[in-house]
């Protein structure tokens, strides 16, 4: 190479190659791009969020079923305690890894369900409202019953039975009678006019939902009967007839219409038959909340 006869060969050559590379990249990109290209991520991320919500909802259902227990009064407290422990552990295990935090609290006002109970030993008459004192509707348009039990202590008088009537969709009925021919004699629990499910002296305890009865304590007579849920379809109407004939206690919690003809304000109380849980998900990119109705399937 003779320095005299050439200019900046290397520099010009380098610049030329730079221009070629630059324009090749741009032209190749515009040729390869078609206007049909879209990002694929959004459908996937929505489904992952739905999976996470489904998983949390399953856990809420299990906790609600396990805290239900026999002591109905403490249910809200137990469920709240379980929820706070659950969210704490969940956030420690899952939240610390991917930054999504969960907050789940029981929302009592949004929970569905009403409870009516009579403790002690009183006649099964209408608690409030107007209308007939002895033949009254406990609830109508009942969709879900979670507690229904009654205890008959004694039947004074001439032994006219008291009848619990449940009407299903389409008009079918199911009846339960507790009879005692004379005070202090053997009590009989019969369903739909069939043979006695239980017969003994003493207090008759009937779990209408489970279809079990027992009279006279654990050493007395126990039996089972067909439940109204297995023979009738919802919505139900639950009525008591001749309620003034017996004395005892009962407890009924369901989702339905508790009519003003049978109750005054204060005779019924809300009860979380279907609890409502406010769930809040805090992710790095978004925060959203949802009120979930927890269907508790009795296990």
């Amino acid at each position: 190479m003779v320095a005299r006869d050439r200019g900046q060969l290397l520099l010009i050559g380098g610049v030329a190659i730079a221009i070629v590379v630059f324009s090749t990249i741009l032209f190749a990109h515009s040729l390869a791009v078609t206007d049909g290209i879209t990002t694929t991520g959004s459908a996937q991320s929505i489904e992952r969020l739905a999976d996470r919500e489904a998983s949390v909802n399953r856990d809420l259902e299990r906790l609600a079923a396990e805290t239900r227990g026999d002591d109905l009064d403490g249910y809200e407290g137990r469920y709240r305690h379980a929820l706070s422990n659950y969210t704490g552990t969940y956030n420690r295990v899952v939240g610390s890894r991917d930054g999504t935090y969960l907050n789940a609290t029981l929302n009592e006002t949004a929970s569905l369900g009403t409870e009516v109970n009579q403790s002690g030993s009183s006649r099964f008459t209408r608690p409030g409202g107007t209308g007939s004192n002895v033949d009254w509707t406990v609830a109508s348009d009942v969709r879900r019953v979670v507690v229904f039990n009654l205890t008959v202590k004694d039947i004074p008088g001439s032994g006219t039975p008291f009848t619990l009537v449940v009407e299903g969709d389409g008009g079918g009925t199911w009846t339960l009678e507790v009879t005692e021919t004379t005070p202090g004699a053997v009590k009989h629990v019969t369903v739909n006019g069939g043979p006695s499910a239980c017969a003994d002296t003493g207090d008759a305890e009937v779990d209408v939902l489970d279809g079990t009865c027992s009279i006279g304590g654990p050493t007395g007579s126990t039996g089972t009967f067909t439940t109204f849920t297995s023979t009738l379809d919802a919505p139900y109407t639950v009525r008591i007839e001749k309620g003034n004939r017996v004395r005892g206690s009962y407890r009924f919690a369901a989702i339905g219409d508790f009519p003003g003809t049978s109750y005054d304000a204060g005779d019924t109380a809300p009860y979380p038959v279907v609890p409502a849980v406010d769930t809040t998900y805090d992710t790095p990119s978004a925060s959203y909340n949802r009120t979930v109705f927890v269907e508790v399937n009795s296990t």
Partner: protein
Amino acid sequence: MDTRAQTPQDFAVGVSVLLVTIIGVLAFVQGSAIAVYESPDVQRSQPIADRAATYLIENHTVEGTRNHLVYNTTGGINASLTADTAELDGLKANAGLLVATERRANPRVNVTIINASTLYDGERVPAVDDGDTLAWGPDATDRQNVARATRVVKLTDTDQCDPVCWLVVRVW
């Protein structure tokens, strides 16, 4: 040499630096930048396949479950895809597969269900149930550049999906 001190070694150094850089740049551009442009057909069809699979799953899932598809009863996947045209036009219209960013797309969509025993053999042959082949849409065998979306599902009222079945949507 004259007084300008441009010895041949100087030239060699300069040329080497330049050539090494140019070769390095070309190798880099070819290796990583151009690689993302491979198979543009598949990349154009991949979002369509994903959307179709998501639509089929979300539309036919049993209420309250994840990835349990209604199979043979009304509203099930077998019923609605068999009632569709041979090119699955109903599916394309409902799932919004005919639209791309700035113009209409015209994808060809094939949907198949693969049962558990075929999965065990590692193949992708569509399942056959009672004489019905669970494959809908134009045939995709021997086609190159096919975008595929695979979802793991379970079908109700059939025992072909023990433990799982696959729903495969192919788009080209």
